[in-house]
Structures are given as C-alpha cells and as structure tokens.
C-alpha cells in the first residue's frame, strides 16, 4: 500500500495531501495517510464521504502513528478538484 507521510503536519495539510495524491493510485487500490494530527481521524472519513471515496479504516504504522486507509473509487472527481 502506498503511504503518505503526513507526520508533523497540522490540519488541514494531511487532507490536502490526500486530495493531491489520491490520483497516484489506480482505481480500487489503497492509499494510506500517516498522520499524528488528531483532526485527521475525523477528517479523512469526512473527506471520503464528500468525495465519494471509500474509507477503509485505521491502522498503526511501526512507530505507532495512525494510518488512515482510503480506497480510490471509480467515479472520482477528488483528484481533479484537489487544491
């Protein structure tokens, strides 16, 4: 799984990174967002809802930082409207 390292980035930077890079993975593939910002836990699922993407769940990286996993869905305008 491709993983974005957003450690140390405050909100909304992890979500901006997610939007910029969702297009880097193929449809049906997973993209992880490693983020220690507490807002990411809520904002990654909220972004998925707003952008028609699938929120898969939360894992932990080897250093304990949460990784929020997103599956890229077919009908995505997410990448196109990234900031």
């Amino acid at each position, binding site marked *: 799984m491709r993983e974005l390292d957003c450690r140390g980035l*405050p909100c*909304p930077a992890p*979500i*901006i990174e997610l939007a910029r890079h969702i297009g880097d993975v193929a449809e049906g593939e997973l993209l992880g967002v490693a983020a220690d910002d507490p*807002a990411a*836990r809520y*904002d990654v699922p*909220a972004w998925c809802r*707003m952008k028609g993407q699938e929120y898969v769940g939360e894992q932990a990286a080897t250093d304990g930082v949460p990784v929020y996993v997103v599956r890229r869905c077919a009908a995505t305008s997410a990448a196109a*409207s990234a900031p």
Partner: protein
Amino acid sequence: MSQGPTYLDAASSEPLHPAARETLMAALDAGFADVRRLHGSARNARLLLDNARAVVAEGLGVRPDEVTFTSSGTDAVHRGLLGLALAQPGSRRHLVCSAIEHSAVLHAARWWESVHGGTWSLAAVDARGQVTDAPNEADVVAWQHANHEVGTVADLSRLRRGLAEDTPLFVDACASMGRLPLPAEGDVVAGSAHKWGGPAGVGVLVVRSRRWVSPFPDDDRADHRGSGFENVPAALAAAAALQAVVAEREERSAREHALVDRIREHAAGIPDVDVVGDPVDRLPHLVTFSVLYAHGEQLVSALDRRGFGVASGSACTASALEPSHVLAAMGALTHGNVRVSLTRDTTADDVDRFLAALDEAVAEVRA
C-alpha cells in the same frame, strides 16, 4: 460609509437585551440587600428576586417553585445533572449522555465517575446530530434540547418514549432557552441567561422532579437548590430579557430562520463546503459549515479582518488540540469550520455583506 464590526456569535453570548439593561440599572440600587434579612431593604430585594423567579417561570411555562437561579449555565448543568444522578437508588449508577452534549455535561459525567464512583457512556447520534435509538441500560440520561455548535433540535419526545418510565432525563437547554419553547420533556432542565440576552452570571435550573438532591454543600440561602449570595439585579435583568425575548419570539424566529436558510444555501454553493446540522429541526439563528482544505483559524481571522466575528470548532481555534467532539461525533469535517449565529439586531444587509466577505475569505485562505 464606514461600518462597525458585525457580531455573528450570539451562540457564544447574545448582547444584552435593551429590556435587561433598563431593568439592571434600576435593580442595582433597589436589589442590593440580603434577601434573608427582615428589614425593609431586604424585603425589597426579596420581592425583586421572587418577581424574577415568577417572570422566568411564566416565560418558560413552569411553576415558580421549580425555578432556581444559579451562578451560571454551567453551574445549573452541574447541579441539575449530578443532583438527578445522586437522587437515584444506589444500584442505578449508569449515566448516558448524547455524544454531542456541551462540555459542561461531559465534565459533570467525568465528575460522576471520579468523585461518585458512577459509570457513564456516550450515545451515538446520526449525521444530523439527531437521536437514533434511545439508550438502553441507562439509569439517568442527559440529552440536550438544541446543540450549541450545529443547532440541531433533538427529538426529545421520541427519546422519552424510548426510555423506561422511571429513567430520569436531564435536558441541557442552554442553547435554546428563550429562543424556543421549553420542551415538555426533562425532569431537570438547565439554561443560561447570557445566551438569550440577559447578563452573564445567571443560570436557570428547573427542577420538575422530586427525585433530585443537591450535589454540592448546602448553603443557608433563600433557595436550597442553589448556593451563594443571590445576584438579585442580574436575575431580574435576566427575567426581563427572557420576557422580552419570548414576546418577540415568533417574529424573530421566522426572520432568523429565513436568514440562516440564505446562509446555508450560499455556503452549500461554495465548492467543497460541508453544511452541518439538521436543515429543518434546528435553532433559528445558528448555522455551522466546514470549508474543505481551509485552515479554521485563518478563516476566522480573514473574516475578522473584514469586520465579522464568528466562532469555529476546528482544532486550531481551540485551547485543546482536539477538534470539536460535536463535529467528530456527527462525522462532519472538522477543519475549516465556521459557526455563524445571529443576534437580535442582525439584518438581511448584514447577512449579504457577510456572504460577500465569506467568498473572499475562502478564496484567500484556500489560495
């Protein structure tokens, strides 16, 4: 023409109502004495306090002996909820709070656990912040009337029907008191005067149930449910404001509802904006939305520079590093959050100017 700042944060504190100001100034001189003494000045103060209680009771549609003035809305919440929990039989120890209660309720729940050895849990809400299922296994339930951040008005009659008959319900009505009729549900209800245009430092505790005991040390004052020397002038001013607000309610509520609809519609038309809360069953004067990819503090500052004072539930605007637990529990976007709440004096022109400033501020912050 230069324009002064436009205050759109009534949900934090409504400016003092003109009726309250007038009453407060008069009562400062007439209501200073100790209501428990037997001389003339004391009798005057006692009369004013009883009058304040009667006016508040009438405005809320409850009996005067059910009303206690407290030192704040938070104090009313703490006394109300803990007193209801403590009055239950010893085996009934589990408190359930909705996941979107005000932090004052959640702090009382933590106190219930740490000081009284009780247990508590959160009940989930749906994406609008509405009741889903009535909590099972609850010995006491705390459910707000209206949410202070997103405005959703809870379907308390549905909640009440789902609870066991002997399960008491505490209702935090701080965000709605005066703006909406008091709900029929709620064995104990709390309110806060500065949210409806009264002075700060006046809370209202309504105890409809006999199953309530004071959770704090007794005080030999006029009303056994409260403590401390009564702030008679402020209580009377709060009562005057409530009376005026209730009298104005129908006209004002319709006007505010329409203005907030306009803000909701405009915000929803900005790309990637999440408008939060129940669109229909809501407080008339309040709306919250989150702007994707925008930094909440920068957005609030950009609006402030353009002359508009608004609140935010984003983590970067909070004293804690955590985002709003209300937005999180509803699955709403927590960053780029703006809460707009109209005052009694907000005009359609204020709203139009705000919306123009919002477009600029969003463009600036997202750039």
